[in-house]
């Protein structure tokens, strides 16, 4: 057995090679499907109908993208919806979550356990989809509104647990105490001390929230019929389900309008690429916060 003074735990070269090979194969499996859709989006429509989907298009073309950008009224509108919902939703959710997490992190607050239980109970039991649907549409009258795309996801018990744990671990009670003695009010302490010290925790929770809003199609599918409020993900889904399986319940006016605009096979993949690329580009920058959050939050909850 080869031994170096510092690295007892090192694998022999042959094993190192085997492990690297395993990981390379897995990475290829992860990436290949994604490469395929990029390739399809750059394939000419003629080649698609003649030869089907190919990793290496027999005829390259930018037509799909030209088509999408020329006829893209609905796409542009949907992009506004997605960007608007993601930006406003993430900020709103972060604010509400941070405020609540801070209150729950204050060990000297008498009602913190009651409030924490009020939150945790929602993880244990829920009314289910049908009651939620009826409450949101018939009681709160939120159907076909911008806020129905934001509010249901804005407070997640999981995110509050991550952020509260983070605040408890990284903010010393002594600092808050000192600020109070200096005459700082609660709002001042929250804005000037708690928020800056919680930045890594906020980044983690922010990433989860951002991805949730960006990727959501469910709320749109359930509550939205107005084409002006159809998000990119939902639009993509409608296009796909129309082309192959015109199901019994997919005959609304929205569908017809979308279908009239974007019939092309390659255009669909081009839209997918447009929706997909921002997440793929942004995520590596967030990765370290994400891993950190997972390790804090994973243990509890």
């Amino acid at each position: 057995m080869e031994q170096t003074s510092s690295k007892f735990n090192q694998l022999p070269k042959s094993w190192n090679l085997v492990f690297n090979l395993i990981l390379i194969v897995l990475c290829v499996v992860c990436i290949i499907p994604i490469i395929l859709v990029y390739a399809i989006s750059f394939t000419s429509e003629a080649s698609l109908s003649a030869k089907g989907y190919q990793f290496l298009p027999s005829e390259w073309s930018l037509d799909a993208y030209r088509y999408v950008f020329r006829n893209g009224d609905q796409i542009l509108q949907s992009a506004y919806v997605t960007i608007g919902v993601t930006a406003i939703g993430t900020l709103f959710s972060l604010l509400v979550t941070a405020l609540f997490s801070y209150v729950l992190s204050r060990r000297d607050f008498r009602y913190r356990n009651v409030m924490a239980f009020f939150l945790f109970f929602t993880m244990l039991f829920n009314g289910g989809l049908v009651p939620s649907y009826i409450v949101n549409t018939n009681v709160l009258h939120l159907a076909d509104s911008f806020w129905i795309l934001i509010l249901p996801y804005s407070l997640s018990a999981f995110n509050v647990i991550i952020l509260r744990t983070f605040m408890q671990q990284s903010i010393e009670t002594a600092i808050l105490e000192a600020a109070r003695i200096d005459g700082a009010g609660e709002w001042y302490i929250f804005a000037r001390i708690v928020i800056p010290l919680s930045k890594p925790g906020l980044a983690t929770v922010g990433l989860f929230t951002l991805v949730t809003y960006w990727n959501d199609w469910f709320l749109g599918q359930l509550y939205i019929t107005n084409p002006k409020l159809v998000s990119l993900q939902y639009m993509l889904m409608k296009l796909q389900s129309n082309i192959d399986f015109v199901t019994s319940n997919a005959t609304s006016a929205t569908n017809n309008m979308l279908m009239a605009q974007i019939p092309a096979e390659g255009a669909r993949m081009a839209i997918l690429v447009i929706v997909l690329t921002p997440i793929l580009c942004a995520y590596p920058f967030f990765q370290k916060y994400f891993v950190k959050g997972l390790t804090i939050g994973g243990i509890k909850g």
Partner: protein
Amino acid sequence: MTFLYELRKNKVLFLMALPALILLVLFNYLPMFGVILAFKNYNFYDGILGSPWIGFKNFEYLFKGDAWLITRNTLLYNFVFIIFGLILAVALAIVLDEIRNRFLSKTYQTILIMPYFLSWTIVALIFYAFLSADKGIINQALTFMGMHPINFYSETTYWPYILIFVFFWKSVGYSSIIYLASITGISPEYYEAATIDGASKWQQIRFITIPCLKPIIIIMTILSIGKIFYADFGLFYQVTYNSGALYPVTQVIDTYVYNGLTSMGNYGMTAAAGLYQSFVGFVLVIITNWIVKKMDKDSALF
């Protein structure tokens, strides 16, 4: 009295918690009272409160019908996801940990976690490119080899395998990260001592790494057992394109409730299915937490 005193003393804290509390009431607690729907013959004009009570009729109807099928599908898929998910994630974490080159290790991680960040809409369309009847990669390959193409979206045989593959494709990198973080936390002294004693790599993995991971493996597994009555809606709805021909092997409680709500219009029975899920799920979480508490008090949820 103490409440009023607290309210005055900590006015700002209450104010800070208020938005969150309002959201919880509107979107979580209000629908909880809606579960009475499961015991009613709901019609739109009388509303939730006005509709007539019918006792357990909705449940009777449900259990005479699809309850067995959707429960079986949900449980079987979740068992596979939990057991193989655990093995794959731990194995992957161990392999990743052995990569000493930091840059390579980071790159592998970035790529392996990537699919987790794609929406189910996108994942469904990506796999459609492989499974499509006329243009899909798999059918092109089959035709090339002189075999008959398969109409995947109406053929139940392959779907258990397809869904399991897609699930792991999307999530295994993500779930391995949590085990990787724990492995990184194991003191190197154990391995140094083992190496001096002449332990092989396999022995080290078996007698040091796995035992050190045991607490977190137990907790993660028990937590997912608590959620065994819930299925990933996106996986079963989007990836199958909600194709009716596939229902015998793809319909789970979540998609059943959704389809009931949007196409059948039978609110009462659909609400009953939802309540059945919530209730059994609740009992499972309570039992789960009780077991966790017995084993390791700090890891309990409440």
